[in-house]
């Protein structure tokens, strides 16, 4: 066989092109495969013979790699034949001098097989991605102990799952006022456009149908698409998550299902976190007055003591016992007694500093833990508490109430260490001294 007939009869398509891809020679195999004659092919750019996706790949990827590397092997390219049908091929290309040489192999069967593999892989990857998103979200949500942590976990999970530009999570509490707790919203408080339903806005034109100002704001902030998903608990709306995209996105069923699943998971955890917070509050507070109870006082007292020892700063414990409270219960009734206790608690809180812990110790006994002690401040504070308690109670005008107050003031030093019980007992002791020496007064002991 002559070299020319070998060329034409080769079981692969052979082409030579100029550097810009214009076909110079083709062999008979390539003519037969494409259905074009040599005359029709020569002078055409090889990219024009490719199906559009391959053409884009060829131009953006094959071409630069070939120019830089000189060789490209086994690139998958799909030819578009004269009759419009497609031929899957693998192409080897080499750059030699001013020419590009291409050898093209029919890869129909292999490509079909790969396509099946690919479809299967895409499907399994998509569902695995979904499972993975939900699993990692479940982990992040589950380890959240506060609403803030949960809001962060939700914002982060959703942003990662959808490659969103940003996400924003609003939590709605008893005040029914949504509060932004995680992420950020390019559009400010989005909840004003929101009616409690899932809202998907794929582009600005759709936004304009809802609200012209929303559409304008989207344009101004380069927000192309957004969605809003409510967090709905059995007791009602507890939050909103909004997801923002700088590029127009199609929010199809898969998007919505996954987003709703994440919102649902987060809502369940939010309800649980709230319940735990409620239980914690109940366990540590006095039901009548809302003040800290003995357990919480003990905890905070130990904490304050340790801190005080570290910093060598003075702290004080006030022990208050109401004088004349029994008469309130006797002259009026127990509900009036309760009301007086609530009022007394309110007055103590008003006198105390914000950082102080005010506790109901039992019956008509209160304790104030003060870590913010200023010089000569103890006297003034005891005086103010006494005066506050002593003021008349509108509900019980005929049963005057006052307070006997014992104060333990402690400044730690290495040879002067006490326990919280000792401190409390000292204050209690001082209170009894005050009571024993005529009530309605304060006795201060310093350690």
């Amino acid at each position, binding site marked *: 066989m002559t070299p020319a007939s070998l060329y034409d009869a080769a079981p692969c398509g052979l082409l030579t092109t100029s550097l810009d891809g214009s076909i110079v020679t083709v062999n008979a195999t390539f003519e037969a495969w494409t259905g074009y004659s040599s005359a029709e092919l020569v002078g055409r750019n090889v990219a024009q013979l490719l199906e559009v996706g*391959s053409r884009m790949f060829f131009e*953006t990827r094959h*071409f630069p790699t070939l120019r830089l590397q000189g060789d490209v092997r086994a690139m998958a390219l799909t030819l578009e034949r004269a009759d419009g049908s497609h031929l899957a091929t693998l192409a080897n290309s080499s750059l030699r001098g001013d020419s590009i040489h291409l050898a093209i192999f029919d890869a129909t069967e292999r490509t079909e097989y790969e396509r099946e593999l690919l479809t299967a892989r895409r499907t399994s990857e998509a569902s695995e991605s979904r499972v993975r998103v939900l699993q990692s979200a479940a982990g992040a949500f589950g380890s959240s102990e506060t609403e803030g942590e949960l809001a962060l976990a939700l914002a982060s999970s959703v942003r*990662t799952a*959808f490659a969103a*530009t940003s996400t924003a999570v609003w939590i709605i509490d008893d005040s029914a006022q949504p509060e932004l707790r995680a992420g950020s919203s390019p559009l400010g408080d989005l909840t004003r456009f929101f009616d409690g339903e899932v809202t998907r806005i794929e582009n600005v034109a759709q936004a304009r149908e809802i609200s012209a100002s929303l559409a304008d704001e989207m344009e101004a902030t380069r927000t192309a698409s957004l969605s809003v998903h409510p967090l709905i608990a059995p007791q009602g709306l507890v939050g909103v998550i909004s997801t923002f995209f700088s590029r127009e996105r*199609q929010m199809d069923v898969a998007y919505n299902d996954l987003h709703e699943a994440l919102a649902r998971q987060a809502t369940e955890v939010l309800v649980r976190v709230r319940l735990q917070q409620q239980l914690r509050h109940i366990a540590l507070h006095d039901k009548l007055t809302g003040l800290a109870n003995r357990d919480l006082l003990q905890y905070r007292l130990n904490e304050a003591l340790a801190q005080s020892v570290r910093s060598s700063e003075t702290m004080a414990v006030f022990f208050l016992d109401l004088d004349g409270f029994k008469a309130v219960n006797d002259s009026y009734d127990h509900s009036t007694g309760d009301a007086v206790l609530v009022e007394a608690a309110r007055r103590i809180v008003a006198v105390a500093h914000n950082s102080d812990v005010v506790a109901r110790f039992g019956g008509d006994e209160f304790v104030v833990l003060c870590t913010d002690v200023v010089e000569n401040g103890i006297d003034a504070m005891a005086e103010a508490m006494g005066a506050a308690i002593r003021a008349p109670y509108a509900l019980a005008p005929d049963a005057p109430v006052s307070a006997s107050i014992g104060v333990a003031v402690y400044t730690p030093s290495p040879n002067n260490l006490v326990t919280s019980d000792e401190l409390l007992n000292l204050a209690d002791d001082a209170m009894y001294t005050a009571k024993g020496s005529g009530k309605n007064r304060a006795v201060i002991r310093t350690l």
Partner: protein
Amino acid sequence: MSCNLDEIMPLRLILRPAPGDVRIEVMDQTVDVVSRNNVRVIGNPDGRPMIFAHGFGCSQETWRHVAPAFLDDYRVVLFDHVGAGHSDLSAYDAGKYDSLDGYASDVLDIVDQLELDDVIFVGHSVSAMIGVLAANQRPDAFGELILVGPSPRYVDDIGYTGGFSQPDIESLLDSLDANYLGWSSTMAPIIMGNPDRPQLGDELTESFCTIDPAIARHFARVTFLSDNRRDLGRVTVPTLILQSDDDVISPTVVGEYVHDNIAGSTFVMLSATGHIPNLSAADDVIRAIRNYLR
């Protein structure tokens, strides 16, 4: 092939811990832009800064025949977009790079970190629009925009010809997958027949136009499904548009659209053909840039 699940991020990108995973609001101020974007600064240190930005599909290597011509007079800055070339793949935050704005903010990071001003920004393909976005955000930092084969939108729209349909873009994604299925970085050593000498395979995949397949897919979506037409009207920086003949990715009609919509822009038709004149006709591109800057 149905692609409605594609908007959910691929597994590999989910598994990658995104920088935003913990606190999504805190921008890392200490990010090393130079290693993140594989920034190279060469040429005349006292010259006017000239940033070259590569397009979809390859890396800063696509400027290797053009950039040297400017080394004597300009401070030449080359870089790889995150996900391409030798950029830091761990910096790939899918949310950030889901729009061209994320890439534009990287360009501004480079401008800031290198303290550049009066920048000549030369952007090819998708980087032309990235340059437009960066310059619109900080027009004071840019002196000139040179857009090589720009397209503000690749998909046709009512009253607009971009050159492609939505199914065309899906077809490109299929083509990407078809190529990476058998030719990914994990497969290369086996195909080379040298599993014991992986460096051979490394050479193959490391050499040029290195790209992470999962990122390439996402970048293809972001590149070819973005619509930045409205940003053209906001350009205030003097702009040169270089259009090559027979560019199947950014057809001449699109280049003319860009010219018509950037007030005062200059349009130059190159004698080059194809989408990457910076590789196929570097001299032509160099001449056009020099003439414009003269």
